[in-house]
């Protein structure tokens, strides 16, 4: 026994899983992971985390896209500086369209890349504690704790409405 263990509880209801997370956090257990078949605002609130950093990826991607849109349109017009229809070589109003499209394009691609990066996708190995039912109709709460806290936290999980609580095994110290 190396002093730590992991408890895996399964819940039928989203609110029960969120309640379990809140109870565990009140009990100073911070190494918690939830598996869910749907996104849950209740679970999100129970964790009280800051908003995802994917926002930053989209913002930076969008800015980079807008700048590259301007650079492409202005740069290529200056390179092929043919007057057409008596209009200025650099005609900003029509270039806004390209700038907008590039902003959306790079903002979107960057957002997806940010999502992959922060979600650690693609993942080659299965996450410890994951069970097929957590992709379908159950919610799983995995908590790592000191072996001495095991019984107390198991009690909290059962109080929150866990259908089953299992000890996944001794975790590495």
């Amino acid at each position: 026994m190396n002093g730590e263990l992991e408890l895996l509880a399964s819940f039928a209801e989203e609110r029960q899983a969120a309640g379990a997370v809140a109870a565990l956090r009140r009990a100073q257990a911070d190494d918690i992971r939830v598996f869910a078949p749907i996104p849950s605002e209740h679970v999100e609130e129970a964790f009280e985390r800051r908003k995802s950093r994917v926002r930053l990826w989209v913002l930076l991607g969008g800015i980079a896209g807008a700048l590259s849109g301007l650079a492409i349109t202005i740069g290529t017009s200056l390179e092929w500086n043919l007057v057409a229809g008596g209009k200025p070589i650099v005609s900003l109003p029509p270039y806004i369209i390209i700038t907008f499209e590039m902003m959306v394009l790079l903002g979107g691609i960057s957002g997806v890349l940010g999502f992959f990066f922060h979600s650690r996708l693609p993942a080659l190995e299965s996450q410890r504690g994951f069970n097929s039912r957590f992709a379908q109709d159950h919610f799983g709460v995995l908590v790592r704790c000191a072996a001495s806290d095991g019984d107390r936290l198991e009690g909290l999980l059962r109080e929150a409405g866990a259908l089953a609580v299992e000890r996944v095994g001794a975790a590495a110290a």
Partner: protein
Amino acid sequence: MAAAAKSVFEPDYGDVDRGVLSVMAPPGIRYWLWVGFLAALVLVGGATWTNQVYRGLGVTGLTQPTMWAVYITNFVFWVGIAHSGTLISAILYLFRTRWRTAVYRCAETMTVFAVTTAGLFPIVHLGRPWFFYFLAPYPNERSLQPDFRSPLVWDFFAISTYLTISSLFLFMGLIPDLANAREASSGWRRKFYGLLSLGWHGTDEQWRNFSMAYLLMAGLATPLVLSVHSVVSFDFAMAQLPGWHSTIFPPYFVAGAIFSGCAMVLTLIIPLRKIMGVENLVTAWHLDNLAKIILLTSLIMSYSYACESFLVWYAKDPIELETFYMRYYGPQGWIFWLMIFCNCVIPLLLFSPRVRRSMVTLFIISLFVNVGMWSERFVIVEGSLAASFEPSQWRYWHASFTEVTITVASFGWFLMWFSLFARFMPIVSMTELKEGLGWLRQAIRDSYSRAA
């Protein structure tokens, strides 16, 4: 009464999974015959196009002044079809609309394949298709660059962006469902879905990032969808041609796109829910709401047609008056009246709740709208070119075997990819149906009580 109440189907998470995953079961011979038929249409279209490339555009009905006709009509039609997918998946997502959950995946899939189909037509329309990349800016020894003041270049950027963003949006939404399919399958299917789901396990951290990314993608896709069809309308509105040069084109095209796209969703999903047995997941309530959008956009279209004609009458420009007179009463005037009948008259039936809840009627109305919207694109594209400034130059396009075959093949191409996707991918979002399970149960209870 109590017995009747007990017999109401109240789906839970497991029922949603079973319902959607059963659609992905190994298909039978009839399915493969259908896909084979569609593939044959594509092959015939491909052979016809090869002949066109070999012999030149002379094999088509294109001639001065109608150098744009069915190919560009098809392009605008398919881009329009694509738009409702993003409306349902992105715009209605931002508004947290309840009924979108059952139909949005189907609409998104339709969007991706419709844009793919649309993207073929500018290339099919080229005499030398191998030079299609001339529209893109790239370094070359002559410092030759595209003119960014041209709407055709805007179109190239808009459509490419739209295809990329809508594909990413579709793929992102699929990831949790693919993980679900992975867990429920075995053999090669497990490996296939495992690969596509990228090792998704639905942890709180993954959902947190997913929700944020999905929300922001919806936020980006919303102005994008409005911009893309506006840009497509600029292809016409920027030209100094009677029938094209109009400031109402962008909103008029966007409304038309949503109108035709929602109709196409109905055309696809009504047979699909019957054939694949998901009537309890995609209920009459979902389609009723879709029909209301069709009704609303039909009224906008009727207003736009009236407004367009009024502007011409009010401006009193003799050439434009003549163009519009020919549009209504010329040799191809019947196409205009067919358009009015299909787009303005037939959808009025949707004011009746009974019609909106009858699947057969709804399906027939959706077909009329598809025909009407294709006719509208044709009237604008070909009709305006055929009878413009000089009466001595007026000439109407005549159907050619090549163009008709390639048009039919484009439907085969679209339906082939859609059919393959619908059978091997989750065509209804399990995740979102589960999220809105309460609404789905309510919809089913409503349909039971109505039937009673």
